[in-house]
């Protein structure tokens, strides 16, 4: 068996194989439901209903999608440059931490605090990723492991602060920070609907990232470095500085997830602010084939699965982890599907 590149990539191929991948994922999810003794169709129905079945459900899905848009974009931007940023979780918490610090300690008036918190968060997330990427470009240290390890270090650091200097004195012993003042929160897009401007910021970010990727010299450089760093270096593209810029962009985007969760939804910082949004961002980005606008769609899809599975597991005897398995399966099927859009498996 051998892989042979296809001469021309038809639209049917480009869409067909990913569609098959998703169909297979649904099949796996059905099998898992059967394993739990549930009716697969009913289970899937409950998941869809839980994600989209009511105004409340839809809003819940949109809210869950918001941080995933940011972490998905962060991963998509980095992976384009073959920069394996697996540390979106740490960058998210860096953003959240700085948001809380600026929002609760500086005493800025709300309209000032909201943009300042965002900028500070972006800076914190960017710096968080800059360290491992510096180690990569200067010393050749693999960034996969360093960014992964920094996730653990960051969580311990946050835990230390929440039990120490940042601990809310009114928190009745819970490790959580003081809450942001009311006027430093992101307002709701429509009065009365539980959806904040963080979601809109996510959409805008996706468009901006898309523009950077296809229309700017930086985007061109990022793609060149990702596809063939040696050729990029030979052609005079400053590979190291492109990687550092990519790191700033990626880390900043991930930090906005933390910013938007704190300023838009939760109001304070806790240790369970993110149920793995940083890691899920990898799935979101891969399902979107690393396309920035696709990230929005896949973030909504992934959020829907999680929200739907949560609601389903309350009704049926199927553990909510069915969502995690399905998404990991979808990720693996999808990378095979991407391969199949470009190569034929031929004999001999």
């Amino acid at each position, binding site marked *: 068996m051998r892989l042979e590149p296809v001469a021309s990539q038809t639209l049917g191929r480009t869409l067909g194989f990913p569609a098959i991948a998703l169909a297979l994922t649904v099949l796996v999810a059905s099998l898992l439901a059967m394993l739990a003794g549930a009716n697969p169709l009913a289970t899937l129905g409950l998941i869809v209903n839980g994600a989209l079945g009511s105004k409340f459900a839809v809003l819940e899905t949109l809210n869950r999608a918001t941080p995933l848009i940011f972490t998905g974009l962060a991963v998509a931007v980095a992976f384009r440059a073959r920069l394996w940023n697996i540390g979106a979780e740490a960058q998210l918490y860096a953003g959240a931490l700085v948001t809380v610090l600026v929002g609760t300690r500086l005493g800025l008036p709300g309209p000032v605090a909201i943009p300042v918190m965002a900028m500070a968060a972006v800076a914190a997330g960017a710096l968080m990723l800059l360290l491992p990427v510096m180690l990569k470009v200067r010393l050749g240290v693999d960034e996969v492991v360093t960014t992964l390890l920094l996730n653990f270090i960051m969580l*311990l*650091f946050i835990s230390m602060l929440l039990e120490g200097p940042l601990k809310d004195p009114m928190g009745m012993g819970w490790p959580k920070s003081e809450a942001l003042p009311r006027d430093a929160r992101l307002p709701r897009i429509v009065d009365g609907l539980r959806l904040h401007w963080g979601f809109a910021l996510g959409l805008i970010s996706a468009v901006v990232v898309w523009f950077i990727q296809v229309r700017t010299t930086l985007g061109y450089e990022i793609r060149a470095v990702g596809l063939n760093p040696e050729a990029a270096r030979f052609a005079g593209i400053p590979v190291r500085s492109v990687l550092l810029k990519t790191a700033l962009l990626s880390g900043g985007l991930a930090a906005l997830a933390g910013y938007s969760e704190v300023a838009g939804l939760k109001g304070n910082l806790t240790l369970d602010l993110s149920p793995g949004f940083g890691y899920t961002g990898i799935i979101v980005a891969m399902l979107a084939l690393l396309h920035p606008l696709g990230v929005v769609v896949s973030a909504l899809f992934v959020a829907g699965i999680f929200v739907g599975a949560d609601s389903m597991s309350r009704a049926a005897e199927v*553990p909510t982890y069915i969502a995690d398995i399905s998404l990991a399966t979808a990720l693996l099927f999808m990378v095979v599907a991407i391969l199949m859009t470009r190569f034929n498996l031929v004999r001999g």
Partner: protein
Amino acid sequence: MEILDILMTASFWGAVLRIASPLIFATMGELICERAGVLNLGIEGIMVIGAFAGWMAVYAGLGLWPGVMVAMATGMLFGLLHATLTVPLGLSQHVVGLGVTLLATSSAYYAYRLALPEVTSPPRIEPFQPVDIPVLSDLPLLGESLFSQTPLTYLALATVAVVGFVLYRTPLGLALRAAGENPSAVEAQGLSVTAIRMGAVVAGSGLMAVGGAFLTMSAFSSFFFEMVNGRGWICIALVVFGAWRPGKALLGAILFAAFDALQIRMQQTPLGAVVPYQIFLMVPYVLSILALVLMSRRAEVPEALMVPYNRGER
């Protein structure tokens, strides 16, 4: 000197070996994969599912050793998935590895919830008990720490010797190392790169799973979520630290475990009362990053690591 006092106790060195054991298994597993040319980022998830599968098997009534076999087989199954995607299909080892970690972890959690829907705290099993090696265990300090361990720890140490022997003293090891250095050398001598690499990933994944199983079957006697807690990633750093050599990687694991055991004991000292415990818990992760930085200049990386091989293409 409190540190010296700690270092002079047998219980400390006993703990070092206990902490090192899962790392040794998994590091050897990763080392086998990487020597053959495949980075296996599935390690973290494979340790989780190994921890679960071994423990579950014993809880379901199997013996301890059959439990270890179940863990190993489960790990090999996920290794096979990883190998199929990365070796013949040549897909990104980064993406596939993370995918396997996510899949294995969530599968373990799903299966746990399916098997034990009601419980709030996980049931315990009767774990491996320490076995004193006659005579040797009576030696002062050394004896108590080195020769009064559970069988799995002895097995971990034996694994290093076996891996070292196979890699450097057998035709199989020769082929495996060549596959990670220049796969076309393997192909030109009539051997299958695909088979060797897949075999290495499957076998390596089996060891990783046993490393996970050590946690539930020897160290803690029960399965918790998040119990692997980054140990897989630490093992990847240990392989680099050990310059892809089994002996050096073993030293690395023991050194690392010594720091870990030390930080646990330091928490009980007056210093521990002043410094937040999280600082101590950060030690293993910070050490791993430091190890990577320290070793970065001494590149002895297998030449074909992470390079997929296509037959006939040279």
